């Protein structure tokens, strides 16, 4: 195992170093990487972004809470000005993927 790791480190020294460099780079004010975001997720950020505004923030919500809120908007169990109209465009599976992404990669630092 140790031998494999040594060989691996030698082979991949450059790549690992590059990766490490990226990870250590101070976070700039730019937006997050949406490359892996599931369909629809990045559009949420147009209203529910990094800063504090008049719109409800998703920052302190768990994925389960976001999912439950979307389900309640969909079913009409929770009143909304607008989210009921948007929630109806997403299935439970789509919502789950979006909620998970929003609470991990999608979360602004």
């Amino acid at each position, binding site marked *: 195992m140790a031998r494999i790791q040594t060989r691996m480190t030698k082979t991949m020294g450059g*790549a690992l170093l590059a990766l490490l460099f990226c990870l250590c*780079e101070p976070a700039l004010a*730019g937006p997050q*990487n949406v*490359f892996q975001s599931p369909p*629809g997720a990045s559009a949420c950020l*147009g*209203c529910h*972004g990094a800063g504090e505004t008049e719109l409800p923030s998703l920052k302190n919500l768990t994925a389960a809470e976001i999912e439950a809120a979307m389900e309640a908007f969909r079913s009409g169990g929770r009143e909304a000005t607008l989210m009921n109209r948007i929630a*109806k465009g997403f299935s439970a599976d789509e919502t789950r993927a979006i909620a998970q992404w929003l609470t991990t990669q999608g979360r602004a630092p």
Partner: protein
Amino acid sequence: MSLTRRTLLATSAAALAAPALAQTAPKVVVIGGGFGGASAARFLQPMGIEVTLIEPNAQYISCPFSNAVIAGLRDLSQQTFTYTALEAQGIRLVRQMAVKIDHDIRRVTLADGVMISYDRLVLAPGIDLNFSALPGYDEGASALMPHAWKAGAQTTLLRQQIEAMPDGGTIIISAPANPFRCPPGPYERASLIAWYLKNHKPKSKLLILDAKDAFSKQSLFTAAWKDIYGDMVEWIGLSGGGKVTEVKAKDKIFVTEFGEHKADVGNVIPPQRAGAIATIAGATDQTGWCPIDPVTFEAKLVQNIHVIGDACIGGGMPKSAFSANAQAKACAQAIASLLRGQNPAEPKLVNTCYSLVKPDYGISVAGVYSPAKGLLADVQGAGGVSPANASAAVRAAEAHYAEGWFKTITQEVFG
């Protein structure tokens, strides 16, 4: 598969997803620094892509909320944004006009003669006002009868004309046929100008001459006009003779098939088309707009060129800042996939447009979209407008949320 090889593959996948891979980074050039183009640049850059943004102006002046500037409720400085955050993020900013695109060799030529090569190009030129579509209305005429459909000096001019108008005057707004930038925009503008008139010049009148018989959020607007502004606001649609066929700018006269209307202040919102560079690129069809693939936003008429925002034919998606921003993110994802030789995933898009009927009275339209039959189609059962019977508290909440949306999106796009 050996551990080494497996780990290597995993690592290279991670490295691809990470930023700042300068050595082999593919090049994407974005033309246009509005909500669509600036968003595309912002979201492409963290995907390990070298991004150049071509935009001749040092500042961007936002159209959303500019109707409030016309009505004296906001200052133009609150609409003005710079590209400082984009440069800080590592996007290369080129303050030039793109004048030529050679799509076969993937190269953009700038007004100063400099050439920039790309792997993929994003066109986000917004709209051009079609100054040949309405007799009598050209750029010169817009100095007398402003369009104010691109925010900036025109916004200020219309505001000044309204402020200088004596009480008892008539303001006329002409609205074009579909499609055009910001479908509820002319009607929000009418509402907020009426709010100004009600408070400052209550004997005045506001007339909307429309080239169509139906418009965005129509029942909500017309009900609110009646409630709040009584007889002050009048709308004449196509079948009532509302289509403007000619403009006499010196006399501020709107000519329709049914007669002439003389204004004290005339606001002509003329027909529009995609920004000129889209036609130069060969991306526009006979409509003047750009057909696109609904998954990748790649132009149907030219390869390796993607079109987002107002310039594209967005199917069910309206030409709005929200749409442009959402399309930019989906397009960035698709481009990053294509550059990695992967199949782009089918996107799902959202639009939300708030309009103010008065300062504490907001209404909205929303939609969810996905690719179907070569277009971005409405997801059935979703979307729609604010309810007709909503309480004053709901209208106030939507006005409040509109402010929040503007703050969020401008922060996301311009930092």
